[in-house]
């Protein structure tokens, strides 16, 4: 019963949504959008679940003095501070009835002056990681890696003014040898062909996965096997 009911619901809803894709008339038109809305409504309540889990996991860590428990204390303190700032609208110029994210409120200050710079810092790390990953990927140890290196070099050069300056002398029928043109060709022909091949595979994979779920063949995501 624990798995049969979800399987029947999946079969009915999945089939109806496939039909809705091909039938624009009422009541099928926009059914997909409506189901998305239902999902969003459920998702809102799930945040209580997430917050509860976060508090429980970290309180357990602190109370049992597990390894690195001070990090948990910092997490809980941050969680409590932002929650209080948002719920009680601390420092809000409009008082308790004002907009939660209004300029001047503690909640807005925490978000703008602490959270946003921290997020940006994490994102900025990507530049260094791209550098280290490129260094490993572009070492010309094999034929494939050499091709990758050459392609990357052409594209990097082609995306800078230096590339045009360097090869701007190729004109007329030799214009295709200008590095920006070579870079565009690599992006538009071999790169795009590879991407489309992967996309076709993904599309078929999505249909196959969806059919497996709708037909009830794939049921690991439902959890326990024994009814």
């Amino acid at each position: 019963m624990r798995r049969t009911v979800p399987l029947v619901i999946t079969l009915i809803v999945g089939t109806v949504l496939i039909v809705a894709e091909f039938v624009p008339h009422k009541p099928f038109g926009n059914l997909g959008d409506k189901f998305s809305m239902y999902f969003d409504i459920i998702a809102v309540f799930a945040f209580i679940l997430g917050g509860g889990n976060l508090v429980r996991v970290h309180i357990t860590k602190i109370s049992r003095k597990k390894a690195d428990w001070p990090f948990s204390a910092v997490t809980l303190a941050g969680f409590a501070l932002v929650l209080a700032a948002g719920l009680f609208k601390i420092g809000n110029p409009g008082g308790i009835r004002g907009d939660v994210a209004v300029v001047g409120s503690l909640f807005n200050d925490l978000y703008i002056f602490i959270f946003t710079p921290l997020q940006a810092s994490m994102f900025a790390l990507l530049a260094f990681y791209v550098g280290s990953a490129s260094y490993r990927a572009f070492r010309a140890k094999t034929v494939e890696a050499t091709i990758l290196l050459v392609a990357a070099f052409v594209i990097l050069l082609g995306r800078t003014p230096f590339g045009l300056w360097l090869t701007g002398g190729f004109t007329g029928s030799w214009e295709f040898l200008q590095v920006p043109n070579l870079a565009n060709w690599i992006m538009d022909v071999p790169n795009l062909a590879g991407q489309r091949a992967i996309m076709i595979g993904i599309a078929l994979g999505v249909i196959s996965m969806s059919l497996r779920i709708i037909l009830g063949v794939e049921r690991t995501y439902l959890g326990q096997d024994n009814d």
Partner: protein
Amino acid sequence: MKDRLKLVVFLTVIAFIIQATVAFAQSEGETADSVISEQPVTPPPKPVIVSGEDIPNDNGHKLKLNWEYPAEWNDSIVRFEIYRADSPDGDFRRLGEAAGGIFSYLDIGSKKKDDPNYMPNDQNLYYRVDAVSKSGVTVQSEIGGPFQTSGQWFHKGKVPVLIGVVLFAIFTIYFIRSARKGKDLYIRPLAGIEAVDEAIGRATEMGKPILYVLGIGGASDIATIASFTILGRVAKKVAEYQTALTVPCYDPIVMSVAQDVVRSAYLEAGRPDQYSDDLVFFVTNAQFAYVAGINGIMVRDLPATNFYLGYFAAESLILAETGNSIGAIQIAGTDQITQIPFFVVACDYTLIGEELYAASAYLGRDPLLLGALKAEDWGKAIAMVLIIVGVLATAFGWDAFREFLRVNL
């Protein structure tokens, strides 16, 4: 000094004369304009409504109104105002406007009866178009209509998609039935899947935990659902080997489902006592805060094996490079094309695109799931044939084939 003073005075006088001349010229122009505006204005001609086309392949409530207007008056018309009523002598309601030089208007009405913009299907609708000239003169067209909108029961532009889906479904059902009857199906091996056992075994030998990241997708993302199924297989093996497992989650619903999947896997493996809700926990649903949290777990716990399977965006390389720096064996898989290169570079094994969806079937070796995979392979073969035929058709100008496969959304 005196010469300089003279020069300054001279320049000031010259500047004053120029300014006075310009001001006089402007005032003359204004007088001339006012004289022109006082002349009698020829009224612009009426717009002529020629058609009202129901938009095809929709649920109705949409109509494209077309009108004609003499080309020589195009520059004189500022805008056309469009009005609609239920009857020729009814109350015409202003819908919107089109700029001068544009001779059509898409009327998107409301489906709700209590909405002032309600547009009923299968009922007569009448339109009027007013041309407004630059001089402010408004000329009304004759009433156009009756026109009707209607909803369609089938989207004709999606016929090729329907044929594809039906064919694919037939293949899938056929191969699943074949597999059920015991037919041996050959499936191409995937290095990333073959390495799963090895990766779990490595973590067990080293006595270190396994980190499983489901990505930043929601529970309704197909990549996340595929990842749930792989998590179930991985968790079962982890439970059998009695290795530690950590599953930090980005989404509370994903966390809830993942907890159930892992709990069930431990139960199936006969080790329910080893399961704890602390294995699968919520971190945050802020993208880079989530990355920071997982990177912290990695550098503190030093997992021997990292799985990144699901929906990933910009955080993919930050995660994979951190995992690489701690020497973990890494298996990744995503359907996000832009992130695949990052995983290929930084991970030991990468499941590319649809391999992510196939992984659970490979791991489970369930004949029914393998049957579905076989259908997928056949689908790819047909796609390849269609691509080749499509290229030939385009090259030789066989437009009928190309038009047959065209999808009009």
